[in-house]
């Protein structure tokens, strides 16, 4: 009987997760054949899966002692070690097998050795394996593996600069040699080489390589390779060649924007070079370039891209310092914009296209443009309405609506009425949907789901742009009611849940948001989508346990993605997809450095701390967490927040906090995304944690924050983490903590005198919290975007008490030098008295808030809000939503629970005294 047949029952048992059964089968086989290594390896796998790790490890050692050379046994051993998180052993099993392997078995083992290094991130060993395998078997693929291993080490951020340079130099030499000798003979190899040259600004060499006859065929076959050549010409300052190639591409009917862009860049680049070098008569040079440009476009019919290319050309021209004075360009830009709007204004992306140039318009031009835009909206509106009346297929209609939706919500507030008309039509379509067929899920039903989804989306857009708060609430609640109706009608349609999670989170409704979020699978959540909206909300309403659980769920997603990526890296190398290696490594790194991941970790740790109330536990957790898991400030932080989705692009700035700057984080947000305030809220997180652990780094960070924040003025916009004032208050507290630490924690005690006077003053200023608290509470009532003021107050109270508790714990747990013990104790006592007063005030207020939202009152208020908008009520009726029961039940029970929780948390703090 072959080994495969003997082992089949074991494989079957493993596949059906019957691990005990698999062990029994293995034992039976081993009884007759004690040295059956494959049976031992599979038994070890089964043991590991039953969490009998020590037994699995012992068995693995036993197998290794027998010096196996069968690659399947080795693969199983390596897999086992990876599961046991013994990465070095996963590599070592292959390395050990090499001296014992026959020539025939050697190559597969070496390949697996190399792949094991890739999978475990052992870059240096990976290089060693590649060199050895190349030396033994001399194949072109192994040369490339060696080169890619050098580059992998160079891209590794932990590699010292000097070594990195060396790796780049070695890789460059090998690439050059391989290209010249013909070893680099695949398009993928060429792509990788060009990538390298582009990264190092060696465009000339890249062009020289691409000019070789043997690369003509790959370039003919891969138009994107030709695009690289074009790009290289432009970057190398060969404007004429770039222009000719771009023109060629455009002449062949390829209307991609990149060719127009290169054409414009080449012409303007050439002009700029001319102006910089020879200083000729400016008007002549500009006139010549413009004439060339016009000659090109006269031959072409007007197309969208061509029209925009002209806009881009004149825009770039107007940016040249020498040309700006000619004063001829703005009106030309205006004319082109008008032409574009009248010809292409109904296109979905029209206004995104011309946004960049609108700033060039002045006075009458601007007014004329607004009129033209309004005209195009009306045209789009007619397009939206007409197909519906003609019974156009629903999907087509929806497509029109989506176009319209983008238009009306982003650009034309006056379209509000017709927007709601569309929304009403959609809700009506859902309300009148045919009954679901008995034999399954009918085609049309899915379409009607879309109707409801779009209607909810439109209401949500409307809510975000509405004021006052009452109206916002009416739209949000209505959208939620439609979505809850959708969830009930189609529980498997995850899009209802995706939108509902966001809206519930926006409304401050943590419990429902998180319960819906938890029903979504990893496929829908990926690594950077909705957890942002939900995680963090639990903290402010005191649901620490649930928030911690949610945080770990989010981190699991990152972990699983990170585990999968190295396998894909190995797959890419095996398949010769060399152009992908750099991006795969970068992808992996960005997952690890993800800002969102750090926020999750920070929030989770913080919630764990607050729920346990133990500084020791927090410190212990922080000691085990990597330092770079905390969100420091770098330039990209604001960008990722502005993007509002991609939380995964934050590079780690290094271990020096001083090197990072908060300037970026507090940069005014011009996008309306609220990025500034979220980043300030993040600063709050940092302060908490640094206060506990990295106290020596806290000082400069707080000073910087302090110097930036007072400079800001004006009304405080809504912020998920509370008002601006509140953040400032927390910063003050953080500063106090920092100074207390700095003064008392010197080890050994320094000669610096303890600044008792100054410290006392600062502490006393913090003791004035009740007054500040009253001020904050009166402010929050008017600043709340959607969340009810009462809930927001309660959330803020919990947050505030957490902060004070933290300070208090720090003060109480510190053991001062005997000489300082007296004054220190009196300060602590004074602070405690003030804090106790503050807590009592907070608890009283919280209980008051909780009692103020009794069920009948809350229900009545919710209904009042709903009835406040006839339009909204009409939409709900059209959709067949009979009353606000579904959502109001969720909201009422959840908010009550949140308030109760908040009150309990604040009262719990009083136990400190």
């Amino acid at each position: 009987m072959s080994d495969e047949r003997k082992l089949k029952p074991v494989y079957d048992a493993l596949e059906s997760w019957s691990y005990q059964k698999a062990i029994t089968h293995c034992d039976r086989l081993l009884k007759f054949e004690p040295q059956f290594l494959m049976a031992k390896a599979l038994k070890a796998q089964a043991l590991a899966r039953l969490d009998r790790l020590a037994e699995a490890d012992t068995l693995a050692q036993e197998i290794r002692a027998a010096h196996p050379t069968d690659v399947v046994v080795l693969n199983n051993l390596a897999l086992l070690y990876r599961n046991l998180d013994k990465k070095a052993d996963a590599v070592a099993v292959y390395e050990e097998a090499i001296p014992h392997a026959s020539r025939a078995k050697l190559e597969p083992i070496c390949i697996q050795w190399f792949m094991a290094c890739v999978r475990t991130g052992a870059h240096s060993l990976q290089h060693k394996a590649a060199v050895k395998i190349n030396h033994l078997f001399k194949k072109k693929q192994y040369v490339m593996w060696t080169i890619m291993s050098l580059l992998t080490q160079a891209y590794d951020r932990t590699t010292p600069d000097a070594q990195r340079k060396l790796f780049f130099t070695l890789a460059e030499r090998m690439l050059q040699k391989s290209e010249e000798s013909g070893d680099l003979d695949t398009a993928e190899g060429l792509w990788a080489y060009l990538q390298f040259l582009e990264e190092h600004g060696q465009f000339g060499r890249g062009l020289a390589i691409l000019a070789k006859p043997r690369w003509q065929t790959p370039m003919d076959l891969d138009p994107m390779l030709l695009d690289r050549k074009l790009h290289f010409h432009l970057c190398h300052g060969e404007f004429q060649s770039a222009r000719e190639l771009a023109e060629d591409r455009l002449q062949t009917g390829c209307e991609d924007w990149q060719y127009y862009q290169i054409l414009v860049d080449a012409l303007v680049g050439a002009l700029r070079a001319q102006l910089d070098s020879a200083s000729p008569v400016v008007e002549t040079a500009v006139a010549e370039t413009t004439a060339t440009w016009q000659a090109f476009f006269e031959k072409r019919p007007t197309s969208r891209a061509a029209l925009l290319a002209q806009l881009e050309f004149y825009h770039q021209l107007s940016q040249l310092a020498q040309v700006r004075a000619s004063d001829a360009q703005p009106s030309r830009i205006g004319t082109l914009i008008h032409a574009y709007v009248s010809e292409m204004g109904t296109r979905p992306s029209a206004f995104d296209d011309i946004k960049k140039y609108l700033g060039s318009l002045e006075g009458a031009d601007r007014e004329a443009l607004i009129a033209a835009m309004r005209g195009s909206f009306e045209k789009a509106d007619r397009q939206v309405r007409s197909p519906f009346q003609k019974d156009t297929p629903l999907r087509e209609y929806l497509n029109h609506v989506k176009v319209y939706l983008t238009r009306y919500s982003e650009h034309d507030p006056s379209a509000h009425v017709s927007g709601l008309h569309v929304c009403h039509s959609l809700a009506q379509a859902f309300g009148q949907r045919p009954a679901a067929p008995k034999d399954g899920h009918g085609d049309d039903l899915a379409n009607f789901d879309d109707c409801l989804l779009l209607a909810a989306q439109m209401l949500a857009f409307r809510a975000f742009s509405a004021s006052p708060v009452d109206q916002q609430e009416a739209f949000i609640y209505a959208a939620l009611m439609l979505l809850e109706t959708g969830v009930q009608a189609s529980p498997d349609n995850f899009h209802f849940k995706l939108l509902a999670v966001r809206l519930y989170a926006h409304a401050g409704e943590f419990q429902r948001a998180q319960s819906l979020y938890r029903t979504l699978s990893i496929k829908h959540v990926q690594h950077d989508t909705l957890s942002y909206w939900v995680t963090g909300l639990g903290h402010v309403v005191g649901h620490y346990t649930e928030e911690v659980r949610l945080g770990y769920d989010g981190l699991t997603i990152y972990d699983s993605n990170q585990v999968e990526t190295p396998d894909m890296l190995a797959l890419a190398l095996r398949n010769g997809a060399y152009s992908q290696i750099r991006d795969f490594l970068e992808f992996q790194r960005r997952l690890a450095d993800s800002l969102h991941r750090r926020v999750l970790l920070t929030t989770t740790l913080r919630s764990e701390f607050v729920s346990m109330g133990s500084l020791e536990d927090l410190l212990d957790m922080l000691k085990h967490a990597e330092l770079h898991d905390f969100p420091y400030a770098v330039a990209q932080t604001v960008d990722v927040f502005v993007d509002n989705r991609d939380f995964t692009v934050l590079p780690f700035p290094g271990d020096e906090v001083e090197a990072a700057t908060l300037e970026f984080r507090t940069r005014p947000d011009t996008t309306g995304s609220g990025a500034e305030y979220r980043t300030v809220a993040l600063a709050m997180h940092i302060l908490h944690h640094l206060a506990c652990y990295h106290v020596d780094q806290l000082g400069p960070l707080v000073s910087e924050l302090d110097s930036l924040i007072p400079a800001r003025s004006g009304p405080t916009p809504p912020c998920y983490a509370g008002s601006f004032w509140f953040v400032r208050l927390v910063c003050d507290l953080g500063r106090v903590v920092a100074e207390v630490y700095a003064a008392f924690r010197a080890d050994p005690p320094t000669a610096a005198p303890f600044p008792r006077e100054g410290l006392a003053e600062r502490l006393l200023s913090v003791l004035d919290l009740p007054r500040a608290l009253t001020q904050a509470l009166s402010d929050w009532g008017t600043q709340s975007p959607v969340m009810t003021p009462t809930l927001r107050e309660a959330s803020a109270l919990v947050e505030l008490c957490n902060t004070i508790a933290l300070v208090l714990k720090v003060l109480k747990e510190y053991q001062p030098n005997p000489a300082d013990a007296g004054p220190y104790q009196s300060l602590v006592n004074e602070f405690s008295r003030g804090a106790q007063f503050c807590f009592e005030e907070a608890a009283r207020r919280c209980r008051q808030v909780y009692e103020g939202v009794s069920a009948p009152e809350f229900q009545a208020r919710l209904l009042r809000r709903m009835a406040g908008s006839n339009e909204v009520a009409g939409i709900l009726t059209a959709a067949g939503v009979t009353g606000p029961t579904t959502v109001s039940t969720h909201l009422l029970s959840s908010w009550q629970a949140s308030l109760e929780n908040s009150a309990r948390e604040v009262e719990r703090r009083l136990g400190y005294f």
Partner: protein
Amino acid sequence: MTTIRRFSALDLFSFNNINLDVFTENYTISFYLQYLAKWPGIPATGMTRSARTMGYMMGKVEGIGRDWHGHVTAVTVAPEYRRLGLARRLMALLEDATDRVYSGYFVDLFVRKSNHLAVNMYKRLGYVVYRRVIGYYSSDGDDPEDAYDMRKAMSRDTHKLSMIPLKHPVRPEDVWN
């Protein structure tokens, strides 16, 4: 304002504007990376001037003998960039690669039977319904839905044999085997 380029692993960080759309399938990260690792020259993406992802195409080549063909796994465009011909451009890229680089006999794709808009678009691009696959789309909790296997012959299939429709529908296992 479209720039077409190769799909990169880093695009996975910024394609949520497309993937959270109602009609777009969302796969696991390793699924996308696998395509890039195996067929790096095929997946492509369209970007706006401001580097916003407009749409993308994932595809592969597979099969043995006369079944050697290109396969469209996903072609999708963000709602705000539809009706600009981007899907057509992305499909053309895959067809070009199948035809000239890999010498495949045909390109095929699976589409939900109910997605009339997509079916009509593929028909306009020269695809025909080769066969119906019963209950091809099914996942936990969903009722299964039939798929159309649509095909378009490439120049290697001179007599367009790959496009002759089957008379009877097939089961998913017939497709996978």
